[in-house]
Every structure is written in structure tokens, then in C-alpha cells.
């Protein structure tokens, strides 16, 4: 799937910049993560950027003040950015950050947040396909983003935020919810 196909008419200036294929801002962040896979600072800042940017800007502000119903309406209307990230291999990159930096709480927290944001309200077939084809090759063999999440939860049993984001992701992946 081509990233350019996701270019949509913009309603928010900052979101429009993110979606502009010529600038390729999400791709720049992914490239930074690929090129500097062993640098904790790059992984941390990139994950934080993805965590924040995977959220529609105007939606994020509204959501803080809104009810659950409004929240669903807003995120369902703007799933494009998350889909861009899912199809661009961000799952492997974020999972790799989780495996590489088990003791960096910032990385663990931001990476779990990205995964949750990516999974939330993203079209289920696209999401499951992306998770199924994502694998990280490391010393322990071929590992999946779900294994990365479970390890993150195991290592951070005392951190509410990590657990909240990871549980949210697993909930999204585990099937349909009653509406």
C-alpha cells in the first residue's frame, strides 16, 4: 500500500503537514528509528513523537474534554494517520525499541502508547494483518510485537501507564467489543 494514497483533504493545518507525502514526516521518524536502532535517545524521542503524532491534533484536545461517545466519533472520522503508520512498518520498529531497551522506562511507556494509539479504532482486518506480518529478528529469534508487549508488561508490573497502554492494545487485538 502506497503512503501517498493516504493523502486526504486536510482539516487541521498540523495534521495536513503530517499527511503531506512530499514532506514525509512519518517516514523521517521511521528512518531515524531504523538507522539508530541501538540509540536509546533516538528511540525514546521517536516513540514519543509517534505517540503524540498518531493522535489527531484537534481530536486530542477535544477528547480530553469530551465524553466517550464523542471520542469514538472523532477517532472514527480520522483513522488515516494511524493507518499510515501501521502500513509503514512502524510495528516492527516500535517492537524493536521495546526489545532493545527493556530498562528504559521512557522507551517502554512511549512505545506501548504508540501501539495502543495505532490499534485503537484502526480497521480490524488491516490491524490484524499488520500484526501477523510484523516480526523482529533479535538474539531470541523471530519475535512478534505482541511478545514485545507481554515482555514490557512483565518488566513493568509496577508502572500503571505501561500496563494501561499494553492492556488497551491487547484488548483491541483480541477481537470485537460489544458496542
Amino acid at each position, binding site marked *: 500500500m502506497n503512503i501517498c494514497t493516504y493523502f486526504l483533504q486536510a482539516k487541521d493545518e498540523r495534521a495536513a503537514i503530517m499527511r503531506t507525502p512530499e514532506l514525509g*514526516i512519518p517516514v*523521517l521518524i521511521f*528512518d531515524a528509528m531504523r538507522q*539508530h536502532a541501538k540509540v536509546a*535517545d*533516538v528511540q525514546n*524521542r*521517536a516513540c514519543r513523537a509517534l505517540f503524540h503524532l498518531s493522535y489527531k*491534533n484537534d481530536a486530542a484536545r477535544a477528547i480530553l474534554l469530551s465524553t466517550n461517545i464523542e*471520542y469514538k466519533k472523532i477517532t472514527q472520522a480520522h483513522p488515516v494517520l494511524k493507518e499510515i503508520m501501521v502500513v509503514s512498518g512502524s510495528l516492527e520498529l516500535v517492537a524493536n525499541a521495546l526489545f532493545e531497551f527493556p530498562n528504559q522506562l521512557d522507551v517502554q511507556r512511549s512505545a506501548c502508547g504508540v501501539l495502543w494509539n495505532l490499534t485503537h479504532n484502526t480497521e480490524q482486518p488491516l490491524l490484524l494483518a499488520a500484526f501477523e506480518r510484523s516480526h523482529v529478528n533479535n538474539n531470541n529469534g523471530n519475535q512478534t510485537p505482541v511478545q514485545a508487549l507481554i515482555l514490557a508488561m512483565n518488566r513493568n508490573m509496577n508502572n500503571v501507564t505501561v500496563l494501561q497502554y499494553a492492556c488497551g492494545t491487547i484488548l483491541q487485538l483480541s477481537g470485537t467489543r460489544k458496542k
Partner: protein
Amino acid sequence: MEPADESLAAHVIVLQAMNNLVTHGGVQRQGCGALRKLAMEPQNRAVLMSNKHQAEVAVLTAMRSHPNHNKVQKQGCAALGAFADDNTENQATLIRLKAHEAVAAAMRNHPTQAKVQSRGCSALRKLLASNGQTPPAVRFEFKCCLCEGK
């Protein structure tokens, strides 16, 4: 506008040095670094980016004049991020001046420089993400089935 604190008196001198020595990479790098430090105080950000001082123009000029100087690019990205941090007006001004393009160019031109990449990621987040708010990733409303209906 009056400086918010005494340390900000330095910004006039720094900006003057940067404006006078645009072609000197070392001055531009240190100048961007100094402005970044000053902008770490929230009340200083508006002063630095006021019409009178326009620190953002100095930083963007430095970045555009020294595209191959990785340290100018790193400090420039960090300074732009600091100006935009938690300040909606500054974010809007910087986007109007295409600061995000300067950051993207820095990242594109210096792919092997980890510090440029990390500062670039932070700057993009501060410029383009919702202002100062952590995304509300999980907002569930739990209802206790035992209490429901009481």
C-alpha cells in the same frame, strides 16, 4: 515586552551576534544552543519570539545558512522545539515560517547523526502534536455491575 527574568537580558546580545555573523557556523551553533536554554523557561518563550526579538528567524536563518553543519542543525532543531513547547501561539508562528520543513531537511540531510535525528523527532512532536497534552490513550469508563442501578 520586558524580559521575564534577568537571564533573558543575554538574548539581545546573542541575537545580535547571530545576526552579525550569519556565515560563522560556530557562532550560529552556540547561539542556537543559548536560545534553546533561555527558551526552557516557559515565560521566556513569548519574549524570545516577540516581534521585537524574533529569535525564531535567527534560528531558521542559521539552519538554512548551514545545512551541512550537523551541530547547527542539532541545536537549531532543539531550539525550535523549545520555542514551540507548550505554546500554541509559537507553534502557529513557527508553522507559518515553515520551521517543520527546516527540521525535516535537517533530518533528511543528516541521517547518520543520532543527535540530529533525536532532536528532530522531538521538534516535530512539539511543533505538530497537540500542545503540551499527553494523548489520552486510554479512557475507559468502568462501571461496577454490583453498584449499577443503585
